[in-house]
């Protein structure tokens, strides 16, 4: 409960800071924000686009949060996302089976790809105590160049050298039903997958022995070892799952929101996952809503900059400020405590003076 309040206050601060920036650049904050929110929420198709934008963020957010619960910092989300997307694209372009089966295969392949990319840092950490921050970042670049090599080499697009071949409509997460429901938005089955995944991850963390073990290792690996848990195996397992989640982000992005992979781009959704996890307090449902909020900001920016003179970078600035406050949540918590104490004191004073009157 308290964490929710802290996150909301962080958001509020971010918005206030954004308003100040808008005012300083000579624009009306009220107008700016109204267009920003309208851009993300005004019509049913805009809401759909917000959710679609949020979808990969939900996965990368869950990925970072899950690793974090086990005491690890997964900064390899962009790379895992790329490889997940690459695996899914490869299957989508080469395998020819019925649609539901194909999609399932692509999802599994995406998960496996991301997991594979996180397995190497996991192994390095378990065997040689290599810090995962270093190794996951390096794996990002390995993924980047792998895509750079594989896409033009094997899945070259028809027109552009820098793009993969388009996935046929049957090999993507596109859903006519959802698009129709949201008035032609590009929202797709990736969002449904994200909801299901959030529930599964919440379940694993809170209700299972696996979650219990992973958290114990994350909180105190000496105690976990003492209790007979296999610390190294848990470290690898946690990174595998985290990587797999980022892999799913790749599936949602490259075979859902888009239908091609471009080379030479490190997906921004990867690192944004860190921010999402932070704002969501590393809790699966917190991550879910934080991702949707960020999705709304991103989706609304275009509309805001089209309708006003406010530079689109403002949205990124707001996000950055929110991250800052979410990361320094201890300050906010102190503020809340101070506020509560102040109120209590006031009450006591009031009670005291009343007693005095009698």
């Amino acid at each position, binding site marked *: 409960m308290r964490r929710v309040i802290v996150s909301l206050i962080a958001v509020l601060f971010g918005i206030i800071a954004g308003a100040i920036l808008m005012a300083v650049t000579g624009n009306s904050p009220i107008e700016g924000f109204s267009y920003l929110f309208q851009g993300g929420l005004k019509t049913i198709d805009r809401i759909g686009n917000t959710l679609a934008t949020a979808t990969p963020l939900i996965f990368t957010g869950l990925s970072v949060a899950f690793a974090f619960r086990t005491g690890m910092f997964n900064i390899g989300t962009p790379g895992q996302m790329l490889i997940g997307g690459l695996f899914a694209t490869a299957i989508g372009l080469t395998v020819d089976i019925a649609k539901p089966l194909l999609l399932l295969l692509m999802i599994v392949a995406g998960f496996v790809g991301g997991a594979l990319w996180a397995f190497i840092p996991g192994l390095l950490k378990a065997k040689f105590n290599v810090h995962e921050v270093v190794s996951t970042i390096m794996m990002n670049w390995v993924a980047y160049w792998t895509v750079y090599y594989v896409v033009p080499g094997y899945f070259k697009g028809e027109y552009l050298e820098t793009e993969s071949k388009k996935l046929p409509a049957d090999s993507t997460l596109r859903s006519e039903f959802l698009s129709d429901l949201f008035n032609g938005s590009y929202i797709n089955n990736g969002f449904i997958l994200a909801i299901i995944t959030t529930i599964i991850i919440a379940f694993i963390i809170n*209700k*299972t*022995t*696996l979650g*219990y*073990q992973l*958290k*114990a290792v994350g*909180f*105190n690996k*000496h*105690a*976990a*070892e*003492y*209790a*007979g*848990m*296999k610390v190294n195996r848990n470290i690898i397992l946690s990174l595998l799952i985290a990587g797999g989640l980022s892999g799913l982000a790749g599936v949602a992005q490259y075979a859902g929101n888009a239908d091609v992979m471009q080379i030479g781009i490190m997906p921004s959704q990867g690192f944004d996952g860190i921010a999402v996890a932070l704002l969501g307090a590393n809790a699966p449902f917190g991550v879910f809503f934080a991702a949707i909020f960020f999705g709304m900001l991103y989706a609304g920016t275009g509309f805001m900059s089209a309708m006003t003179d406010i530079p689109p970078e403002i949205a990124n600035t707001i996000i950055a400020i929110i991250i800052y406050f979410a990361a320094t949540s201890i300050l906010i918590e102190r503020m809340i405590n101070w506020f509560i104490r102040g109120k209590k004191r006031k009450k006591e004073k009031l009670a005291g003076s009343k007693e005095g009157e009698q």
Partner: protein
Amino acid sequence: MEYVVEMRNIRKEFPGVVANDNISLTLKKGEIHALLGENGAGKSTLMSILFGMYQPDSGSIYVRGKEVKISNPNVANELGIGMVHQHFKLVENFTVTQNIILGLEPKKGLHIDIESAAKRIEDLSKKYGLNVDPYAKIENISVGMQQRVEIIKTLYRNADILIFDEPTAVLTPMEIEELMEIMRNLVKEGKSIILITHKLKEIKAVADRCTVIRRGKTIGTVNVDEVSEEKLAEMMVGRHVSFKVEKEESKPGKTILKMENVSVRNKKKVLGLKNFDLEIRGGEIVGIAGVDGNGQTEIVEAITGLTKVEEGHIYLNDEDITHIPISERIKKGVAHIPEDRQKRGLVLDYTIGENMVLETYYKEPFSKRGLLNKKAILEYAEKIIENFDVRSGEGAHSKARGLSGGNQQKAIIGREIELNPDLLIAVQPTRGLDVGSIEYIHKRLVEHRDKGKAVLLISLELDEVLQLSDRIVVVNNGERVGELIAAETNENEVGLMMAGIGKEEKA
């Protein structure tokens, strides 16, 4: 009579507990005033209030006759109050001087004037007989020496009211003697000392007056000369306490643990345990006596599987367990009350409930097909909490971090005994605990023995080893020096063997 410190009717509540319930305490100039209470009685809270780390909900504090509001430790420092914390706050790879001046570095132009600071530290060290080398690095000096650095730190900041928070918990008997001498020197020079402790012997040795608190309430303040240890214990616990461990003669059964020729490397990669033999039978408590760091840790880690055995074999119930994983050993009946309860024994961010199933969470009824059964876990935890008198604000829902050290320890001991292991390894099971808890834990260990199980006791408190054990194995420098029957020996004999003397005669 004017008091240096006077705390009047201090009250402090935490969620679910009243830590201090109108406690009053007075400190005279030049006295050593002991603050005695069980674990979790509220001693540390009271002192944290005096040192400005907590704010009291009500009550007032007077320093040298003036009412003061101590809103943070800096204010306390300015008032001349210094605290020697139980867990030192030192930078390991800094020198003594660097640590002491941290935060108020004397400057000469742009650079720090280390020399003059070191000079002052040396003077202080001489004046109070502390014998500290200002240029030694913290990581290279003993724990006792580190504590003196903490003392100098307060003196350097001109403190004349010193709070010692359980200062002897981390010291060897020799170092304790020296610390008491230091404290006497300090008061001789006009300092006043508050000594937080639950060790009655120490109070009798150095303190002038003693304030006893129990469950957050003041029980009374007494002149130490006029009361006996038994009386103090009774005031603290609220009932009569026996210092003697009551136990029948042991009836050893079949062999439970057998170590044969075991060698283990320690953290520095040299042999910390050399060709060690040990046999424990059901129905007996075997104590290991030795100066800290002479192979005790290696013995424990070899049996529990936390470290690799280089050579030799370990058998549990005639089964070779030398190289099986930790979880298998737990399953086969090895339980372990670890030396470092916060590092090994508990996941501090888990609740007490979750901690109570740390080794058994995967078993029914605590989980079924990989799903946790929170209700069963809670019920089990509540049972342990009740049986072992673990006091916490919200029962099984309290975070382990929020419990006092003694209650954390009782929770661990409860968890391990509840496993009903064939072999219970108790490492320093009563360290930092008050007499009431010690008595209780000793009783439980003897009970466990009487069920026909084996208990391996490792303790640095010679008294404890002598009283509780049936047999005593003495170690020195990683080797077995000899074995004694507890009932037929005394402190002197064991002490000599601990120093490595008597090896030839006994071998």
